[in-house]
């Protein structure tokens, strides 16, 4: 039947001494909505760049709709938002959307593309006069204006305010509901959870999980318990359901999926604790825990 939208097969990418991707294989079928999740520097952008043919894999292969990703027929079927890419500041929003539309065989109308990105009020403005969030919306307009079968969004909501992010995610969800393939990278688990039906977790260039949001969340959505204790050594912390443990001087940081159980046990053991804080683990921390667990099963 139809070719998968993306196929990475044993793809590796090395930049000098840095192994940015190592032996990554996965397939994204047409119509799937996939989030690539990972901490900063994990290899998310590299994996997108390899999928899009913007970077050549050092080993392995990448395919877009069964074609070489550099093939202009493949690129005619995709729309992309890249991090840190620039656009000509001296063009008006309508002019640059018109320009990008002309690259694609079956584009949307200019006004539809601009409306989809919520930029109607800025349509006549010069690109250089847009705010950071409006720039991101312009990139969305440029990504969708070719009426692509697949959208690749690399950290698309960076620089957006809360309202902008909400509206943006709604637009992407609408596109996904119309059968578009969406591949987005993010380091917000929440964002991935909201949009995607599949999450690929990348860390240090490797896929460490590829599953549904529910399954991933249960593995990374932990709580962080922090407290000071005069005597952090010994058996006080032994045998607790922790995903990670860190002791700096007298300050103890624990990551766990069962915070109530851990606290109950600590109190039961009579461990002396001051300045107790319990907070949602941020994803960076959760990943650290997750990857440690992968490394030492």
């Amino acid at each position: 039947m139809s070719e998968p939208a993306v196929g990475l097969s044993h793809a590796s990418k090395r930049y000098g001494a840095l192994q940015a991707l190592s032996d990554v294989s996965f397939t994204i079928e047409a119509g799937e909505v996939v989030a690539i999740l990972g901490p900063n520097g994990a290899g998310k952008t590299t994996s997108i760049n390899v999928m899009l043919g913007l970077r050549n894999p050092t080993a392995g292969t990448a395919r877009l709709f069964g074609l070489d990703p550099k093939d202009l027929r493949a690129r005619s079927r995709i729309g992309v938002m890249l991090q840190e890419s620039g656009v000509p500041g001296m063009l008006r929003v309508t002019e640059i959307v018109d320009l990008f539309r002309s690259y694609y065989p079956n584009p949307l109308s200019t006004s539809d593309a601009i409306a989809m990105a919520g930029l109607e009020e800025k349509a006549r403005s010069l690109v250089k006069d847009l705010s950071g969030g409006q720039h991101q919306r312009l990139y969305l307009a440029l990504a969708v204006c070719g009426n692509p079968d697949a959208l690749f969004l690399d950290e698309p909501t960076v620089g957006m305010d809360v309202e902008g992010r909400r509206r943006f995610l709604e637009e992407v969800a609408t596109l996904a509901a119309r059968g578009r393939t969406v591949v987005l990278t993010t380091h917000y688990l929440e964002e991935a959870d909201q949009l995607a039906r599949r999450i690929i977790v990348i860390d240090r260039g490797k896929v460490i999980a590829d599953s549904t949001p529910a399954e991933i969340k249960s593995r990374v959505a932990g709580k962080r318990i922090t407290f000071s204790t005069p005597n952090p050594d010994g058996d006080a912390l032994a045998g607790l359901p922790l995903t990670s443990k860190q002791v700096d001087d007298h300050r103890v940081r624990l990551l766990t999926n069962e915070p109530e159980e851990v606290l109950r046990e600590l109190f039961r053991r009579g461990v002396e604790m001051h300045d107790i804080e319990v907070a949602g683990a941020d994803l960076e921390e959760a990943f650290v825990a997750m990857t440690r667990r992968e490394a030492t099963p």
Partner: protein
Amino acid sequence: MSAIAARRARASLPPMLARQTYAEFVKLLRVPAFSVTSVVLPAMFYAFIGLGQRNVPMGPPGSVTFGQYFLASMALYGVANVMVLGFGISVANERGQKQDLLMKATPLPAYVFFVAKALSALALAMISIAALGLFASVVGGVRLDTSQWLTLVVRAMLCSIPFIGLGFALGYLATPNSAPAVTNLIYLPTAFASGLFFPLSLLPKFLQDVAPYLPLFRAAHLVWSSVGYPENDINADWYFMAAYTAGFFLLALWAYRRDQGKKFN
């Protein structure tokens, strides 16, 4: 499925080229620091240097006047200026802002982008010649035959082509910060050393020795002879221009590949 099969797999090229050319032209035009100087500078130099001695004959009485001769010089100066500075600085800036990153992910073929950039600069070069010609004929009262006007315009535009290659090469070799300095440092001295502003005989000896190898010097012969100034062997000049065109475009291709190899390999 048949509906999908009927959809075109690639956009058609002519509208794409038209849009891209329009966008590139508008981008050039909306940077007054560049567009205004490109159009005004040659006419201004003409006013400063050419007007006062416009009726002085360059040889025996009845021969080409300095007004006609200097019109040809400034026409060439103007078009080559658009190419070297226009490309050099704009390409370097666009690279600095990573505009090439997003373009690279679109189905825009690289050659469409380059042709569009060249066409837009040729259009601005035409405007610069028109402004200069208008100024020289209306204010300076310079007269040329229709065939001389045509030959001058065609030759000046043809002679701008190798400088398109040079401009691209500099744009891919220079950084955004260094591009204005580098392009001016290369272009202005060679314009002087090629005799565009002062006769070569007034320049130091070593410059006179170097001049025959400068592309602008060869191009200058071609435009001077188009207004009737006697140049003996313009065939050699054409060969030199062809060689410079090939050389500069190869340099540009090398510089482009080097830049892209760093970013997209």
